[in-house]
C-alpha cells in the first residue's frame, strides 16, 4: 500500500559556507579570509499527505527555497533525511523526477523561440513519453489551462500570464503526484492570478495532485492551501490549517458599518483605525480586550445602522504579524 505521506522530512538542515570579505586596502582580498557557516535550514521536520495543498512560506532568506530545492533534488542536505514520493531526492534524483513537477516562477522551462506545442514535445522526450500520449495529454492540458488561442505563437511572444499558465501546464505533462510551485503568480495581474488559482484548485480536486506552494502573495495561500507552514531563520515557526491562522495569531476583527444617515463623528473608544467615507465606516476591534458582542451592541445603541459586516483580519496582516513577532 502506498505511503499516505508524499513528503517526509526528518531533522533536515542545510549549511552554506562562505568566506567573509575583509575590508581594508587594495590588497585586502589577498589576505587569508575567514570561512563562515550560514545555517539556511535548521533541523526541521514535517510531513505532507498525498493530495494535500500546502503553503510553505516565510520572509526572504527564511530557508523556504533551500528546503524546496532539497526536496526536488537540486541541493544536498547537510544533515537529516527526506523522502519525496518514496524516493530520496539526492540518491534517486532521476527516478524522483518522474513523480514531481516543478515551476520556478522566475525561470522558464519552455523553448523560447518555438510555440508551446513544441515545448510539450520536448518534455515528452525528456520524460520518455510516447508521441501519441504526448499529443493526447497536451491537448487535455491546453484545454484545462486555456492555452488554445496562443498555442501556435512562439513563447517569446506570450504575455507573462499566458507564459505562466503554459509553464504550469507543461510541468503536468507527465502527471506528477506532487507539484512544487515557487512564486507561480509573481508579476501576474489580478484576473490572471484568479484564473490560475482556480485551475490549480480544480487540478488538486479532480486529479488529487499534491500542491506544495511557496509565495509571498497571501491571496495564493488563501485560495489554494488548506495548510500553511511558516519558516523563519531556517526553523518552522508555525504549522497550522490556513483558516486557523487568523484566530490564533491575530485577535483583530474588521468591522464595516453602513449608517442610515451620514454622521460627521463616529466615536467608539474600543474601535481603532476608524475610516469614514460617506455613510460607510470601517474599523478594527481587538477582541481579546473588548468582546465583539459588546462593541457591536454599543454601536447599535449609539448609531442608526443599516448594515454591519464582521470579517477576520486579512491573511496578509496575519502573516506579516507572524513574521514580525516570531
Amino acid at each position, binding site marked *: 500500500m*502506498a505511503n499516505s505521506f508524499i513528503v517526509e522530512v526528518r531533522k533536515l538542515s542545510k549549511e552554506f559556507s562562505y568566506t567573509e570579505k575583509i575590508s581594508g586596502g587594495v590588497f585586502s582580498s589577498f589576505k587569508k579570509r575567514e570561512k563562515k557557516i550560514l545555517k539556511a535550514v535548521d533541523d526541521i521536520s514535517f510531513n505532507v499527505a498525498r493530495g494535500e495543498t500546502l503553503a510553505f512560506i516565510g520572509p526572504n532568506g527564511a530557508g523556504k527555497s*533551500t528546503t524546496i530545492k532539497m526536496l*526536488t533534488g537540486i541541493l544536498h542536505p547537510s544533515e537529516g533525511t527526506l523522502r519525496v514520493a518514496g524516493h530520496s531526492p539526492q540518491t534517486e534524483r532521476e527516478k524522483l523526477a518522474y513523480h514531481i513537477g516543478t515551476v*520556478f516562477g522566475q525561470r522558464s522551462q519552455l523553448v523560447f523561440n*518555438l510555440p508551446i506545442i513544441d515545448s510539450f514535445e520536448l518534455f515528452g522526450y525528456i520524460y520518455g513519453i510516447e508521441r501519441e500520449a504526448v499529443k493526447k495529454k497536451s491537448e487535455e492540458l491546453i484545454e484545462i489551462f486555456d492555452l488554445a488561442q496562443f498555442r501556435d505563437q512562439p513563447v517569446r511572444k506570450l504575455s507573462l500570464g499566458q507564459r505562466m499558465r503554459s509553464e504550469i501546464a507543461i510541468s503536468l505533462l507527465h*502527471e506528477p503526484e506532487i507539484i512544487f510551485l515557487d512564486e507561480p503568480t509573481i508579476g501576474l495581474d489580478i484576473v490572471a492570478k484568479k484564473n490560475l488559482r482556480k485551475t490549480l484548485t480544480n487540478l488538486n480536486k479532480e486529479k488529487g495532485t499534491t500542491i506544495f506552494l511557496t509565495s509571498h502573495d497571501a491571496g495564493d495561500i488563501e485560495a489554494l492551501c488548506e495548510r500553511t507552514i511558516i519558516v523563519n531563520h531556517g526553523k518552522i515557526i508555525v504549522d497550522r490549517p490556513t483558516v486557523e491562522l487568523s484566530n490564533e495569531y491575530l485577535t483583530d476583527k474588521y468591522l464595516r458599518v453602513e449608517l442610515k444617515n451620514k454622521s460627521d463623528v463616529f466615536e467608539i473608544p474600543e474601535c481603532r483605525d476608524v475610516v469614514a467615507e460617506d455613510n460607510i465606516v470601517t474599523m478594527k476591534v481587538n477582541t481579546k480586550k473588548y468582546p465583539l458582542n459588546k462593541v457591536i451592541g454599543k454601536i447599535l445603541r449609539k448609531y442608526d445602522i443599516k448594515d454591519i459586516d464582521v470579517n477576520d483580519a486579512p491573511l496578509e496582516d496575519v502573516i506579516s504579524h507572524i513574521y514580525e513577532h516570531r
Partner: protein
Amino acid sequence: MTHHSRMSLATYMNTDSRFLAQAYSFFGILKVSMVDCLAHPKRILSNFLVLFVRVGVMFALYAYAFKYVGRNVNGISFEIAIWSIAIYFIILATYLRYIFVDINTDVVSGKIETIVTKPVNYLLYRYALKLGAGLGDMLFVLIAVSLILGLTIGIPAGTHDLLWVLEVILITVLGMVITLLMYSLIALGSFWIDNARPFFWIVDKLVLVLGGSYVPIALFPIAIKLFAIYSPFGASMFATYIFNPDFAEKFVTLVGVQVMWILVFLILIKFVFGRAMKRLSVNGG
C-alpha cells in the same frame, strides 16, 4: 484515490534499459533543438556570411602566398590548404564550443535548477540541445561552402570513395565529441571559481591555432605538429586533415588519439560532475 499512471519510457516501450531511455530523450531533444534552429533562416544566413568573409580573406591571402612560394608547400597544395581552413570554419559554425557559455550561464544564473529536476542527465541534455542547434547551422554552411569551393578551386586530388566518406564522418563526429567534453569540463569549473571564462579563452585560442584555422596542421613545424596531433586541441579538429595526402595512412593514429582523449575526458567529467552537483548553490538556496 487511484493515482496517476506513470508514463515513463519503461512503461511505454517495455524496457527497463536506462541507456535506451537516455538515448530516446537525447535524440528527441536534439530533434526539437534542430527544429528551433531551422526556424531562424536569417540567423543561419548571417552565420554563413560571417564564415564566407573569414574563408574569403584566407582564400585571398593563401592565393597570394602560393603564387610566390610555388605550387606545393610542405607537400600541401593551395587547394588542400583552403579546403582544410574551410573545414575548420564549417565545424566552427556548429558553435559547439559555446557549450561552455550554456553551462556557465546555467550555473551562475541558477537556471540549472530547471534541468536537474528532470529525468535526464544534465550534461546529455545540454549536449543534445547544442548538437541539434549546431548541426542545423552546419548543414547549411557545409552545403554552401562545398558548392562555392567545388566550383571555384575544385576538390583536391586523391581517392574520395565511400570508405573515405565514412572515415571523414567518424573523425568529424569524434572531434565534435572531444569539443563538447573539453569545453564542458572547463565550464564545470564555474562550480568552484566565480568565472571560468579565462580558461575558456586559453583553450579556445589553443584550438584556434592547433586546430588549423589559419595554418593547416600539415604546414606546422614538426614539434608543433606533434603537439597539435597528440593534444586534445588539435584532436578536436582532425577533420581539417581529411584532404591531406597522408590522411589514409594516418587515419588509425588520428582516431586512436581521439578515442584516448574522449576516454580521458569522460573519466574526468564523471569525477568532476559528481562533485560539482554536491556543490551546487543557486539563488534563494
